[in-house]
């Protein structure tokens, strides 16, 4: 897993609530058996005017210029500013893969759907939760200022604006540790292999019908 400590970057807006993972990466791109290459199709139906297909070259597709992330001022954005319940719907990890492949390192929103939130941490993408009021402030500043950047610091759990405002955010200790150190979660769990085996033995004795039936 990729590590994350700090990031400073250009902010791009996604100004609507309940952005679902179908919107983040439409289903036709889920046919890939790879983890990479989803960036060009991030927000595909909003970004382009035609219907995208896997394997289709996106460089000559008609672009929807009214979609904010297509505007020059947001080119190269690496911090996505979003609204509440971001990432709802399907469990597809292709959503954080697409965000990360596009170049985003951080998402900031008032809330996230549970599965999406969890999936972000597996991919070195930091989902920051700020209050609705704080997100409103950031949207206002972003609209007013071209080249608007934010600094995000995971060890201190803060988002800092260039004018010096500091917003703190909460996250679970175990998620923070994994992200800071880029830990291999499977490797960590396998350190407890003896305990897992012990649990299994006890459970097989108590609930034998759970074991050995699928062959």
């Amino acid at each position, binding site marked *: 897993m990729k590590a994350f400590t700090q990031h400073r970057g250009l902010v791009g807006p996604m100004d609507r609530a309940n952005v679902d993972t179908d919107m983040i990466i439409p289903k036709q791109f889920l046919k890939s058996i790879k983890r990479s290459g989803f960036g060009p199709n991030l927000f595909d139906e909003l970004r382009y005017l035609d219907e995208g297909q896997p394997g289709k070259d996106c460089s000559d597709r008609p672009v929807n210029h009214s979609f904010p992330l297509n505007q020059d001022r947001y080119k190269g954005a690496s911090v996505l500013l979003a609204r509440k319940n971001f990432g709802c719907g399907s469990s597809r990890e292709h959503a954080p893969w697409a965000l990360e492949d596009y170049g985003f390192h951080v998402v900031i929103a008032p809330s996230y759907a549970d599965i999406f939130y969890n999936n972000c941490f597996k991919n070195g993408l930091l989902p920051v939760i700020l209050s609705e009021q704080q997100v409103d402030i950031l949207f206002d500043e972003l609209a007013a200022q071209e080249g608007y950047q934010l600094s995000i610091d995971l060890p201190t759990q803060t988002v800092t604006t260039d004018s010096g405002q500091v917003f703190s955010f909460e996250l679970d200790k175990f998620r923070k540790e994994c992200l800071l150190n880029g830990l291999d979660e499977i490797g960590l*769990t396998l350190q407890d292999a003896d305990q897992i085996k012990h649990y299994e033995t006890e459970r097989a004795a108590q609930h034998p019908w759970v074991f050995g039936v699928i062959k």
Partner: protein
Amino acid sequence: MTEETLYDKLWNAHLVKENDDGSSLLYIDRHVLHEVTSPQAFEGLRLAGRLPWRLDTNIATPDHNISTDKAERDAGVAGMVDEVSRIQVQTLDDNCDLYGIKEFKINEMGQGIVHVMGPELGVTMPGMTVVCGDSHTATHGALACLAHGIGTSEVEHVLATQCLVTKKMKNMRVTVNGALGTGVTPKDVVLAIIGKIGTAGGNGHAIEFAGSVFREMSIEGRMTVCNMAIEAGARVGMVAVDDKTIDYCRGRQFVPQGEMFDQAVGYWETLVSDANAVFDIEVDLVAESIAPQVTWGTSPEMVAAVTSFVPTLDEQPSEEKRKGLERALEYMGLEAGQAIESIAVDRVFIGSCTNSRIEDMRAAALIAKGRQVAGSVKQVLVVPGSQMVKAQAEAEGLDKIFMAAGMDWREPGCSMCLAMNADKLGSGEHCASTSNRNFEGRQGSGGRTHLMSPAMAAAAAIAGHITDVRAFSGVNS
């Protein structure tokens, strides 16, 4: 001893270890795999030189990508027209063969949509933890399982360790008491719940559905309800064990028999919330107040009674809601204040992990019987959820009823619920759909989805527009 909720009991029974950092290691009893969210997990396993922890926990089947067209299906994986999909299904077959994972292949009896297949084969049983790389895994909670969707990294984690690193959710109980009216189905109940608590209302919570409505409801109906817990933001939906649960499990392929079954039942009967267990959130609905439901917008919470109207801007409590409504109306091509029943439909889809079981097929057939699809409707797809549902429906002659009405009877799969195969809406087309998501583009780029029950979808097919199924003779009481 503290009184426990059903979720507390399931959680505690699967706890391997609590870590100092607040996370826990939770043991997983059943892991269901399909072609779309597993290839990268198997690749990760291979790259790390790891093997699956246990084989008799995993079960796989292709469902998302496969064609529902008989001629294409008869040609098997090799005959799949979409090359990218063919490679993905072949990859699932190859991975299962390589590791020795039990798979019901594309045309094998047993194959079906993962959440139809698991319970009907008895792969999932009460009291189990069940995960799958699919957000509708909560379906299995109808059997009092702790079941939820996971991402692909977690699919790999479960394959390698049989555990998840996770954190306990909060408890939420949704109680619906009373008696449902004629023509009001489990789908209407869950849509009404989502309408009440919103699409993020259950975030961070495991929902237990309780009350007389769920006690009276069949297990298949409970699956429809638990299936859509995620549309209310909750990863987990559950119903406690009762006699119906035990009757449902008895005799299924992977369920033990004889003494071991009796032993299992002894445990299963404990899988109810204690009388004084405390829930973090309690929500109540009255059954008599629920009418057949239809979504008019682009989020499952944008839902209304079939007899009502598309909301207006001045009814909205906040600027955010007004913006959301405006955007949804523009996408859906609807007017504020328009009668729900005035919405014409171009296509109808009866299927998906929400509503493709035998009871759903029967409910749709009751409406279709002796009637004809309206001339203005381009296509009505009836897609059974599994090979077993298909065989049962055909044994009952339901396929003939659908075909006589002018509907297409298809091969099992996810189909137009998410339109990864050829079954999709054209831009601007309205669809009466028994699936679970009405997001923009979900059923095809530019497509406009209206979620409803199987009986309501069949009625819309006959009428050519959304209509109140209660006006049809033959509707289920």
